[in-house]
């Protein structure tokens, strides 16, 4: 067998210079994210100039976002409470991630498609979906609850990263039909490790599908921290390998999230193909109500992130520009309380589930086998 004993000095990969002039290198440079995560607001909500050319969203949109974030947070709290009352089977909170939940959705038109994961309940509410419908699955029913086609919103997806390819496919399909709608796929940091995410980026790029991949990098995949998930300089560096324009954004800065998401959506809508956004954020609560986060993270870390709260930051900013005052603040809080009270009340009623519905939507027309099985179940129910 051959060996390399013949070779002389130890071969070493040379250090790389920074300047890049070849067409491929230039193309790559145009795809890579900004030096630092895009920010308009610092951690206290003061305006900073780290937005690298992204335009500031109009203030009315920011007020709308604020409203949705306050309502969303209250909704999220209510859901966690509902798990304790046994009204929800399980609930994955997005407390702390409201800038992404809301910013992602507000960048969309009604005819754009949206692909949420299990964590996107607040995004669904922001989309306008009835919260009881949105909670149907987590409540213990067998379907997603809302009309996925009418809302152009796929059922919340649990098999990680699988939905990102669907988003690429629907975005390409709409383009083929001459529509200028885009698709938004939510995904978590951990799920970016799945092969499907990479196939999605690749299909999206090859077919120039107008899809935005919004990675909510909340630092953990259940218990696994990002450092064990990837050695990438940042997740936004994954786009260049597919020819996908990529950006990093402070995911707790609602202004920045909206600014980048609006640009990303427009990028796709105007025919430039996919866009990858990595938003740095944090989930304040555990993975779900069933999770014990103390097993894998320090309380100090959570406290540290509480100081970067996206809701407080946006409030501070809106106050500083005169777009929010005590009266409006109180009005929004009321709105949130009404929303939560309404939800609590409606969720107190036991949902009516029809067992034989289990057979109704397996196929358009049940097979003879299913007809027989349904009959068997009916017999059993009659015998009860």
């Amino acid at each position, binding site marked *: 067998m051959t060996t390399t004993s013949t070779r002389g000095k130890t071969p070493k990969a040379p250090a790389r210079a920074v300047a890049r002039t070849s067409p491929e290198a230039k193309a790559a440079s145009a795809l890579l994210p900004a030096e630092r995560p895009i920010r308009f607001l610092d951690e206290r909500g003061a305006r900073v100039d780290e937005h690298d050319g992204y335009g500031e969203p109009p203030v009315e949109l920011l007020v709308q976002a604020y409203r949705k974030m306050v309502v969303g947070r209250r909704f999220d709290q209510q859901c966690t409470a509902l798990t304790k009352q046994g009204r929800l089977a399980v609930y994955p909170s997005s407390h702390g991630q409201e800038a992404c939940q809301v910013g992602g959705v507000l960048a969309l038109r009604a005819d754009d*498609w949206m692909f949420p994961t299990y964590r996107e309940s607040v995004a669904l509410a922001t989309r306008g979906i009835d919260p009881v419908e949105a909670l149907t699955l987590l409540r213990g029913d*067998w*379907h*997603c609850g809302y*009309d*996925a*086609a*009418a809302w152009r919103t*796929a*059922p919340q997806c649990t*098999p990680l990263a*699988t939905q*990102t*390819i*669907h*988003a*690429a*496919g*629907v*975005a*390409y*399909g*709409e383009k*083929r*039909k001459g529509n200028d709608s885009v*698709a938004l796929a939510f995904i978590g940091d951990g799920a970016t490790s799945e*092969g*499907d995410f990479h*196939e*999605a980026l*690749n*299909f999206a790029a*090859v*077919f120039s599908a107008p899809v935005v991949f919004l990675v909510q990098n909340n630092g953990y995949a259940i218990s696994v921290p990002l450092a064990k998930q990837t050695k990438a300089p940042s997740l936004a560096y994954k786009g260049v390998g597919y020819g996908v324009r990529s950006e990093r954004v402070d995911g707790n800065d609602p202004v920045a999230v909206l600014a980048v998401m609006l640009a990303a959506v427009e990028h796709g809508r105007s025919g430039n193909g996919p866009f990858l956004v990595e938003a740095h954020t944090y989930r304040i609560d555990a993975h779900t109500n069933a999770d014990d986060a103390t097993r894998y993270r320090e309380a100090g870390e959570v406290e540290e992130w509480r100081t970067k709260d996206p809701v407080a930051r946006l409030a501070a900013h809106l106050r500083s520009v005169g777009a929010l005052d005590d009266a409006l603040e109180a009005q929004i809080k009321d709105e949130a309380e009404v929303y939560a009270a309404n939800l609590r009340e409606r969720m107190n009623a036991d949902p009516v589930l029809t067992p034989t519905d289990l057979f*109704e*939507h*397996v*196929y*358009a027309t049940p*097979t*003879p*086998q299913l007809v027989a099985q349904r009959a068997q179940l009916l017999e059993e129910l009659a015998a009860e």
Partner: protein
Amino acid sequence: MSTTALAAPTVTMAQALNTALRDALKDDDRVVVFGEDVGALGGVFRITDGLTRDFGEDRCFDTPLAEAGIMGFAIGMAMAGFRPVVELQFDAFAYPAFEQILSHVAKMRNRTRGAITLPIVIRVPYAGGIGGVEHHCDSSEAYYAHTPGLKVVAPSTVADAYSLLREAINDPDPVVFLEPKKLYWSKDEVSLPAATAPFGRAEVRRAGTDVTLLAYGPSMPVAMAAADAAVEDGWSVEVVDLRTINPYDDATIEASVRKTGRCVVVTEASGFAGVGAEMAARVQERCFHALAAPVLRVAGYDIPYPPPKLEHHHLPGVDRVLDTIARLQWDDVPFVGSR
């Protein structure tokens, strides 16, 4: 004038499939065909031959090499209103798409109470008998058949290949369409378009009175050949072709077995926990008191698919089927069938 019945032309199964795709592309703008090498090359088995040329890149196109990607993309396109017909190049190369197939394709209608439906056809050149090397000859039907929400089809005749593929494309639900590779070059005299019985109907391919052979797709030729050969042994063998594994036609099978009182299931796939087990279990559940003997199975061995030079030892052959028929206690047990 044209009342003279013209002899139907001789058509291969590959041609019938190609024609079915063409006719579907012609009849329905929503149909799109994609996968690996289905464009310029026309597929490694040429089933998509000329489609890109004749219908354009938009209707038939190559994708990146990623089966989960192909399947997920099909889901997305179906959500946008298309009717994707995807080719997964070989049986074993569908495995990377299993999560997409099992967790999404099979379940989307149910998860959305019918708001989102996935009229997708997953074409899989499948099974052995062509001297293929490893990973190119898997009989993977059991994985699909065991998954609620999928329909599973395996044609054995040229006319069925056409008719069932058209029906699959028109079906509102996802269909795994298993094309027995070794039958691609089988021929028949068929006028296309052909319309055969719909999904869920088995066909008696050969009538007989002594024993029923149950088979489908790649195992039909050996079942038919065994029925021919059995004549010499004095057995009149009925052969039933499932055509569609799901939906499953119990009625036709039950009628046949009640008549013959004996049944042998033939599948090329490995026997253990395969579709043949279901076939055997169902027959005895439904016809127990009409049976003179147990329902026996002739199946591939429970081994990885063997290489070209040994596959004939693995595949059920006429002798193995006849030997099994011979084991159906012809002499020492009184016949209790309802004949």
